[in-house]
């Protein structure tokens, strides 16, 4: 037996290009697609290596030397050294992996995330306590909604 699909919006061929294209229409957001996952593979695996205490020690002792052990681009290495998380997202970084870098720095998610918004930590925290950033005008670049 084959139940019919319960979703009225289902059916027809999947257009993966249209599917992926829509993610670029969200303001201020880098959706972690396969393309970004490939671009950032070694960057994210480097960050992952900081899960181990002995690696964190070596990293803290000489960040540049530690980075040079990884086949990352120079731009990615400079982005890490500068803790420029928006730049790292553009270069294929994923936030859950980059979290290993800012956790090693002793930063919380709230502190690290605020650095990507261009807001001061106090202002960002106040915005969250007041209910967060409104989705109004933040949904679609094309449709201005």
């Amino acid at each position, binding site marked *: 037996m084959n139940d019919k699909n319960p979703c009225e919006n289902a059916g027809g061929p999947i257009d993966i290009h249209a599917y992926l294209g829509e993610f670029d229409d969200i303001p201020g957001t880098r959706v972690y697609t396969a393309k970004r996952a490939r671009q950032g593979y070694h960057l994210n695996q480097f960050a992952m290596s900081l899960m181990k205490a002995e690696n964190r020690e070596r990293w803290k002792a000489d960040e540049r030397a530690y980075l040079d052990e990884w086949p990352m681009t120079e731009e990615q290495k400079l982005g890490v050294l500068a803790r420029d998380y928006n730049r790292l997202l553009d270069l294929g970084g994923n936030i859950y992996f980059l979290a290993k870098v800012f956790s090693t720095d002793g930063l919380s998610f709230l502190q690290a995330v605020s650095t990507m918004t261009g807001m001061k930590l106090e202002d960002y925290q106040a915005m*969250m*306590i007041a209910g967060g950033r409104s989705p109004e005008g933040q949904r679609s670049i094309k449709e201005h909604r």
Partner: protein
Amino acid sequence: MARITHGIACSHIPALGVASDFDKWEDPYWKPIQEGFAPTQKWEAENLPDVVILVYNDHASAFDMKIIPTFAIGCGESYKPADEGWGPREVPDVEGHPDLAWHIAQSLILDEFDMTIINEMDVDHGLTVPLSMMFGKPAKWPVKVIPLAVNVVTYPPPSGNRCWALGEAIARAVESFDEDLNVQVWGTGGMSHQLQGPRAGLINAEWDNMFLDKLSGDTQELRCIPHIEYPRETGSEGIEMVMWLIMRGALGKETRELLRFYHVPASNTAVGHIVLEPVNGDVPPSATVEGAATQEQID
């Protein structure tokens, strides 16, 4: 015979784990959350299941970019809390239920859900924070746990529809397990949050509450929400809510809400939880050749 008694959805925000581990619940920032979870903790203690099937996502802890399983089920004896970069949480080890887990894994594969099977892994905040929120700080977790990890980090994650259907298949699998067990299914993660980019901090209380509303009753609308709507409406990490649909699918045709709590914020995130009871737990029969044969044996 094993049975699914209830479903719970719950945020798994790491900061909640910190609040629990370092006894911060009396702080004014955390107090409303502690009060919001208190009735559920009480209810859970009175309705304690034998096993929880805990749907969650790993956050670059057990899995890195080397292997990205879409759906993975833990069949091991036990799991240790992961070191996520600041040392492992000081919470009890998580005890598995390998008999039921392997039964579910086999049933799901015959039901054409091609699961990855995990025998050894560490579990991160995605799994341990909901346990802390439901049970507080016991010396030993009072339930056995079957971890069910879903990829919601690298796109594309599974569709909401597929998650719902997986839940239905889990219900069929649990029903065909011989031992007399009460089983809860938990969906974790969410609600609206964005942890990256200039748009970070996005919260959509209206959408989150719509989602909570539609988990109860007999509507299946939530399974039809396309991926794009989650990041647009609820932030880039709001996609975690597809995991709640595995829980909802497992509860069958119709559910009733017993408890609900919603609060903004914890750290960057909207906190939500809901307790659901099946009113009509029927799920469609397996549509597969192997699944149909299994079903005949049960009937």
